[in-house]
């Protein structure tokens, strides 16, 4: 049921003076105690109808409100909440002033309608009526009594401050134990950067390789691992356009550093999150989904009848490959380590599942399909000879990872017998331009939103428990995607 709150008072000041304060949509952090900090998004004027004020309350809540009406003739301002951490839904408020002509004073009427979650009607009505409107009356009276409105110039715009945050750092390469949580101050965003409040961080096998020191150039020490995250924009640095505080975003970047609750990233990396995709699903799916996308569409050229061998078919990328390849009409063969994982892979469209813990699968692949046209391999050195044996003539072995250990040098002549090809791709090469990033991400969001991907299977760990998440991944104990929540 729609809630309605009305509060009104008389302010002992001429209407012109009261209106001069209230018509400024960004003035409330100067006179209302409950507002900690406010700014107008996108550098717009505070009397621009349609502008959005983004502000924090003293209790930490964040609210974005849009100015819908500004009427200097009727002394009226109407605005609506477009996003808030307070559960006020469909909130539309109107401030109306009238002159009290026989007293030189101002009548101030403040009202709103909104919905609330069931059972919280009274609490939220009281919060709006007392915490915001009545307190606002008293605060504005004090503001005017102290002549704060008459002192020259507006208060300076609040300057972005460092934010207390957590991150996970690798000080020396090694086992999962080298991942250590620590507190740090997340600095304001620099030129071209956006500061992101990261709520969900994707964990990928690449993070394990970096932690072990396989690719030192990608994780210089001490360093913060992690390539992808989802959350919302806190603030933007100089020269950033088209991104506003509060926007829901995700990114997948070529530079590590995602294992943190707050991170500054180049604005160019950001991908907008549609409402239908939650933070956890985005972080669980972005890198893996984009990987599946380029493997299926570009590198693997998977089509009807393609015999595709997917290792770790119940893993994060594996499940997406099974589902995507099945849609394209491919014949999908997967390898997994347990019967439970076999069930998951089958449910995603894997036609044949080979359960093996000792990297023996070539005979089965030859028997089932006469060899594989494409192999997507994350196993590495222990499965090297089996992969060569599992290939069909003119087959394509795509080495995506090396969970069992770094692949030993491959003699080119090993490919000759089957006229085979070998690829060693990195996802970032397939999303080098902004257009490519957007297009690939959009296909992932679409698949998540329209249900083609189903709800991703997600195992969640706290950010500070990143070591535990890595251990689970390396023990092959997980199915689906791992996400750190901050």
């Amino acid at each position, binding site marked *: 049921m729609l809630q309605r709150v*009305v*509060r*009104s008072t*008389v302010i002992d000041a001429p209407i012109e003076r009261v209106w001069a304060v209230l018509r400024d949509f960004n003035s409330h952090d100067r006179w209302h105690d409950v507002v900690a900090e406010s700014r107008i998004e996108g550098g717009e004027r505070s009397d621009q109808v349609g502008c959005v004020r983004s502000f924090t309350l003293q209790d930490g809540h964040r609210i974005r409100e849009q100015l819908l009406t500004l009427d200097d003739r009727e002394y009226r301002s109407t605005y609506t909440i477009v996003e808030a951490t307070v559960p006020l839904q469909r909130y539309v408020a109107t401030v109306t002033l009238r002159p009290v*002509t*026989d007293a030189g004073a101002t009548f101030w*009427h403040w009202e709103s309608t909104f919905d609330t979650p069931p059972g919280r009607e009274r609490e939220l009505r009281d919060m709006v009526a007392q915490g915001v409107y*009545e307190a606002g009356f008293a605060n504005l009276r004090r503001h005017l009594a102290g002549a704060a409105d008459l002192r020259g110039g507006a208060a300076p715009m609040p300057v972005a401050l460092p934010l207390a945050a957590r991150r996970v750092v690798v000080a020396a390469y090694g086992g999962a134990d080298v991942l250590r949580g620590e507190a740090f101050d997340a600095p304001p965003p620099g030129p071209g950067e956006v500061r992101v409040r990261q709520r969900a961080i994707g964990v990928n096998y690449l993070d394990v390789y970096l932690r072990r020191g396989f690719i030192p150039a990608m994780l210089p020490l001490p360093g913060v691992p992690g390539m992808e995250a989802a959350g919302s924009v806190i603030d933007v640095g100089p020269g950033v356009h088209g991104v506003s505080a509060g926007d829901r975003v995700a990114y997948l970047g070529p530079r590590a550093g995602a294992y943190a609750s707050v991170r500054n990233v180049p604005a160019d990396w950001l991908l907008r999150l549609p409402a239908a995709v939650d933070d956890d699903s985005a972080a669980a799916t972005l890198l893996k989904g984009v990987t599946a996308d380029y493997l299926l569409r570009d590198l693997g050229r998977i089509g009807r009848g393609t015999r595709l061998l997917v290792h770790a078919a119940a893993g994060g990328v594996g499940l997406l490959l099974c589902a995507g390849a099945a849609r394209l009409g491919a014949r999908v063969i997967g390898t997994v380590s347990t019967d439970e994982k076999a069930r998951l892979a089958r449910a995603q469209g894997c036609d044949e599942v080979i359960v093996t813990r000792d990297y023996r699968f070539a005979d089965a692949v030859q028997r089932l399909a006469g060899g594989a046209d494409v192999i997507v391999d994350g196993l590495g050195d222990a499965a090297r000879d089996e992969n060569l044996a599992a290939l069909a003539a003119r087959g394509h072995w795509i080495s995506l990872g090396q969970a069992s250990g770094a692949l030993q040098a491959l003699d080119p002549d090993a490919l000759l017998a089957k006229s085979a090809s070998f690829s060693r791709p990195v996802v970032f090469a397939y999303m080098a331009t902004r257009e490519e990033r957007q297009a690939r991400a959009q296909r992932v969001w679409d698949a998540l939103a329209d249900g083609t991907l189903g709800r991703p299977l997600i195992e969640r760990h706290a950010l500070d428990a990143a070591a535990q998440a890595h251990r689970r991944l390396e023990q092959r104990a997980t199915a689906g995607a791992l996400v750190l929540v901050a």
Partner: protein
Amino acid sequence: MIKVYVSSVIDASADTVWSRIRDFNGLPTWHPAIADSRIENHEPADRVGCIRHFHTRDGGRIRERLLALSDYDYSCTYEILESPMGVDNYVATLKLMPITDGNRCFAEWSAEFDCAEGRERELTATIGDGVFQGGFDALKRHYASGRR
């Protein structure tokens, strides 16, 4: 088009004040400038469209038609059909708004009308200061004595 707007704060709730002024036939009971009033054709005083026929204390005869009445908005709008004032197209609204902090309400009375050139100031004073403010002053005196 001339506009007149007068407003005030009265020390009683909007409900209380409204019960005193909503009667379209009740001007003589609260407005000191009105001598008598009746509703034409024996219609009820809260029927929108009814006409009140009254005399001011200085002898003027005025007929006004009720155009809108809202107990929800505490508002009443009427037009002058006949008067000695020399106004045309005269439409006025008397309206209350609650003031939630304290037992009081905001009252506003406004009118729009046309008149002969040169009479604007005089009519604005007569209507605004005399009729409207005079009515509010009477209400304020009435409730100042603690009758709420």
